[in-house]
């Protein structure tokens, strides 16, 4: 089973994603910010990270920068789920080494699972 780490500060969205991705065959870990996410990534061999952009303590951009800093498995897939959908935000995140970028308001949870699967299969 693939291990997925979800970094999302909104409790409700965290619940939704956890439920949907657990039901879709992933082993899901959740974190309320980038800092907590990094701690989990140190302990678990995470395959996929889904991260929000704006979070307290450590935001999504900082999390990606850390995850791509050399200490972690470079084959880890990292997808940003954001409400910032401007091209500049996307470009910035992709340059940092993200695998994908999804504007979360555009998708229902079921569609989100499909999108994520598409990105990790590519």
């Amino acid at each position, binding site marked *: 089973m693939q291990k997925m780490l979800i970094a999302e500060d909104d409790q*409700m*969205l965290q619940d*939704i994603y956890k439920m949907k991705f657990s039901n879709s065959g992933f082993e899901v870990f959740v974190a309320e910010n980038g800092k907590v996410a990094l701690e989990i990534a140190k302990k678990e061999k995470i395959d996929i990270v889904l991260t929000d952009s704006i979070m307290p303590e450590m935001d999504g951009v900082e999390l990606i920068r850390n995850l791509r800093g050399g200490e972690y498995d470079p084959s880890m897939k990292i997808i940003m789920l954001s409400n910032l959908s401007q091209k500049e935000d996307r470009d910035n995140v992709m340059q940092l080494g993200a695998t994908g970028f999804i504007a*979360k308001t555009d998708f229902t*949870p079921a569609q989100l699972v499909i999108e994520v699967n598409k990105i990790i299969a590519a």
Partner: protein
Amino acid sequence: MNKAENEQQLDNAKSDFISIASHQLRTPLTAIKGFVSLLLEGSYGEIEPKQAEILKKIYDSNQKLVSLVDDLLNISRMETGRMEFTFAPCRLENICQEVVDAFSVSAKEHGLHLEYNNPGMALPELMIDGDRIKEVIFNMVDNAIKYTPKGGVRLKIEQVADNIRVTASDSGIGVLDVEMPHLFEKFSRGKDTKRLNATGIGLGLYVGKFIVEAHGGRIWAESEGENKGSRFILELPIKSKK
């Protein structure tokens, strides 16, 4: 700092506020969309048809809020010069087809015919921001359906001289002479709420005009008057001025 700079700074502050507020608004809206979708999918157990119907209404209302927030975000981007365009070769007839497909169910629910007249041949490709132009055409058809109590809506695409023209015509309530000059202004909604029994805050056409003009094109409306229907026409140059 002179007066103009001062005003510019105030304008930027206002737009930053709108932008942040919009992002904050989107988070709970995304959660509502998520939970309602999960309920509808039966993730929390089976639901009765009547309950599903109500949930669908909550979902639709939420989607309306999402697009209002999007409009506000667009306005803040426009007014601070931060709206970006990604120009790429696009076939406008495909975009029109996608828009018509997206509305087929809602037109039927309103008891309206929705027709698409495509030219039956390939039109020249355009260098446009396909997503943004799709938003504009989507809005044209959405308005046509909203303001047409009975009859139908037709979307037509054709080449007219050096332009590609898209026309959304309807058999709806029409546009009054007094309304016509203000249609594309910000927050312009007809004041006669009895006549215009529809939702929206009057940003769609304002944003649409900005997008179309950024492509070197134009958008305008024509109507013979009250209850005589209207036509919203969009023209984009084949040789883009990008």
